C-alpha cells in the first residue's frame, strides 16, 4: 500500500443500545496500524463486545466514524458491511467457534463462501486447508472429521485457520485463549503469531489476562480507550 496509514481508526465514536438499559460507549480515538498486533485488556462487562461489534460492523455508532483500510464502515449499508467483514476481517471467538455438524474443512472454508476476493486468493482450497492445518499442528485425518469431535484446543486452532484463510488483512480475536489451560495457551499463541507473521495481518485481541502482553506490539487498557457511561443519558 502506498499510504501506510492506519488499518483501523475510530474517531469520536458514540454508541448507545437503542431502547435497552442505559449504556453508552464513547471512543474518542483509537488506531491500529497495518501489521500491528494490539492487546486490549478489559474485564467482561467493560464494553469489549460492543466495541468489537462496532469494529466488525454488525452494529452502527450513532455518531463518529469507523474506518477500515480506507473504507468508512459506519457509512456503509448493512449488506456492504457484511461483505466488508467477510473480505477483510477474520474473527476468532472465545469458544464455540465452529459449526459442530460441519467438517473441519467445511469450517475453514466457510468465509470464502461470503468473500469472493479471499476465495480468489486461494488457488487450491483443499491444499490450503491442509497447509494451514499442518502449520497449526492439526493432524491431517482431522480435516474430514466433524468439528464437534475436536477438543477445545483443536477447535480454537481450526478457528485460527478459518480466520486466516484467504489472507484477510485484519484478525479480531475475542479472548481466544480463555477456554484453554495455561500450557495450551502459550502453544496456541505461538502458532497464531507464527501464522500472523507469515500473512502480515494485523491483530486486535481482547483479553483480561495481562500476562499475554509480552507477545504484542502494543498493550492498551480498554478503559483508556472506551468511556462507558451506564447512567441514564
Amino acid at each position, binding site marked *: 500500500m502506498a499510504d501506510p496509514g492506519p488499518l483501523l481508526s475510530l474517531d469520536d465514536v458514540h454508541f448507545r443500545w437503542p431502547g435497552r438499559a442505559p449504556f453508552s460507549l464513547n471512543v474518542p480515538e483509537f488506531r491500529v496500524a497495518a501489521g500491528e498486533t494490539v492487546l486490549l485488556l478489559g474485564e467482561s462487562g467493560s464494553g469489549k463486545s460492543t466495541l468489537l461489534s462496532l469494529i466488525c460492523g*454488525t452494529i452502527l455508532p450513532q455518531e463518529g466514524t469507523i474506518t477500515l483500510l480506507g473504507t468508512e464502515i459506519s457509512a456503509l449499508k448493512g449488506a456492504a458491511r457484511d461483505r466488508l467483514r*467477510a473480505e477483510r476481517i477474520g474473527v476468532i471467538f472465545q469458544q464455540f467457534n465452529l459449526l459442530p455438524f460441519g467438517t473441519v474443512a*467445511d469450517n475453514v472454508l466457510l468465509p470464502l463462501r461470503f*468473500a469472493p476476493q479471499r476465495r480468489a486468493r486461494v488457488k487450491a482450497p483443499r491444499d490450503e486447508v491442509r497447509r494451514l492445518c499442518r502449520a497449526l499442528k492439526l493432524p491431517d485425518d482431522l480435516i474430514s472429521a466433524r468439528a464437534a469431535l475436536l477438543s477445545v484446543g483443536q477447535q480454537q486452532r481450526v478457528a485460527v485457520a478459518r480466520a486466516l484463510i484467504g489472507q484477510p488483512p485484519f484478525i479480531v480475536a475475542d479472548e481466544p485463549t480463555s477456554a484453554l489451560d495455561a500450557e495450551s495457551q502459550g502453544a496456541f499463541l505461538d502458532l497464531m503469531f507464527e501464522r500472523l507473521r507469515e500473512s502480515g495481518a494485523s491483530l486486535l485481541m481482547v483479553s483480561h489476562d495481562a500476562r499475554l502482553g509480552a507477545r504484542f506490539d502494543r498493550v492498551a487498557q480498554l478503559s483508556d480507550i472506551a468511556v462507558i457511561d451506564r447512567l441514564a443519558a
Partner: protein
Amino acid sequence: MILRLCLASLTARALTVGMTVLAVALSVVLFLGVEKVRTGAKASFADTISGTDLIVGARSGSVQLLLYSVFRIGNATNNVTWASYQDIAARPEVDWIVPISLGDSHRQFRVMGTSAAFFEHYKYRQDRGLEVADGALMADLFDAVIGADVATTLGYAVGDPIIVAHGVASFTEHDDQPFRISGILEKTGTPVDRTVIVSMEAIEAIHVDWQSGARIPGQSTPIETIRQMDLTPQAVTAALIGVESPLQIFDLQRAINDYPEEPLLAILPGVALQELWGIVGIAETALLGVSAMVVVTALIGLMATIFSSLNERRREMAIFRAVGARPLTILVMLVLEAALTAAAGAIVGLGLLYLCLVVAQPLLDSAFGLWLPIERPSLQELWVVLGVIAAGAIVSLLPALRAYRMSVADGMMVRI
C-alpha cells in the same frame, strides 16, 4: 456448500428432523390416499356400467332407478308392463334391449331375472364383458349363474342346488322350485359379483303359485306342469337399452318419458352417475378437507420444530454472521432447511403411499370391489408434493424472520 451445510445441520438433528419428516410423510400419505380412494371409487363406480345408452324403469327418480337397476341398492316402486317393454323394444332406434327383473333374493344376494342378451351387452370398465369362470350360462329353466362373490362367500360350485327366497329380506322361500348352479362368472368388481342371475322365465315360473306377493294357500303346481306353461313375463323391473346411433339417444329418451300408456322413466347412466356423485360429493369433499387439515397440522409441527431450534442455534447464526453472512442468508438457510424437510416428508410419503397401495390393492379389490391402479404419480399428485414443499418453505418464513431479527440484534455476539 450452503446446501451441503444445511443437509449436515439437518442430519445432526436427525431425531427431531426425522420425526418432522415422518409427520409430514404420514399427512401426505393420508391426503394422497384419500384422493386415490376417491378417484378410484369414482372410477369403479363409473366403470360399473358402460355401453348401455339408456336405462328404462317405472317413473321415479333417476338416481333411484340407477341404484336399483345397476347397483341393486333399494327397490323399484313399480314395474314396467310387458306390453310397454315390447313397445319400446319394437322402436326403430333400439339396437338391443335387455330386461331386468328384480325382487327375489338368495341369502344376502339379490336374484336378477334377465335374458341371454344380458351376458352379451352388459359391459363394465369401458368394454369388458362378462366371462364365465366355471360351468356355462343357463341352459335349463331352473339354471342359475352366480357372481364371483356369491360363489366365494357361500362356497358354491357348479352343480350345487340353490333356493331363491321371495323378497329381499324374507324367510318365505321358493323351496318347491330349487335351482341348479350352471355357471360362475369371473370377478368384475361390479354388483354383478353379488348377484344370482336366472332367466326371465324362471322368475315367472317360481311365481306361478303366487299372487300379490304371497303364496296362494294349498296350491302347488308340479314342476313338470310349470315347464309346459306359457312363461312369458308379465312385467319387468327395468331394461337396459343400446341405440342404433348415439344421435338417437335423446329422441328415444323423450319418447319413453312421454310414453302415453304408462308413466316411464329413461335415464342416461352417465348423467345419473354424475347426479349421484353430486350427492356423495359433499362427504367426499369433507374427507378431503379433513386430510388437508392433517397436512396443515404437520406443517405447523414443522414450524414449531424450527422455532424451538432457534435458541440453541444462536451460536451457529453468530458464526455465520462473523464470517460475513448477511442476515438474509440466515433467513434463506432456514427456509431452505424447512423446504428440504418438507421435501423429504413428501417424498417419503409418496413412497409409503405406493407401499400401502401394493399391500392394500388386492384386499380392497376383494373386499369392496374397489380397484386402485398402481401407476406413475399423476400430475396432480406431483403438484401436491410441490405444494407441500412450498407450504413448508412458507410456514418456515415465520421462524426464519425471527431468526433474521435475532441475527441482526445479536450480530456476532450472543448474549445468553
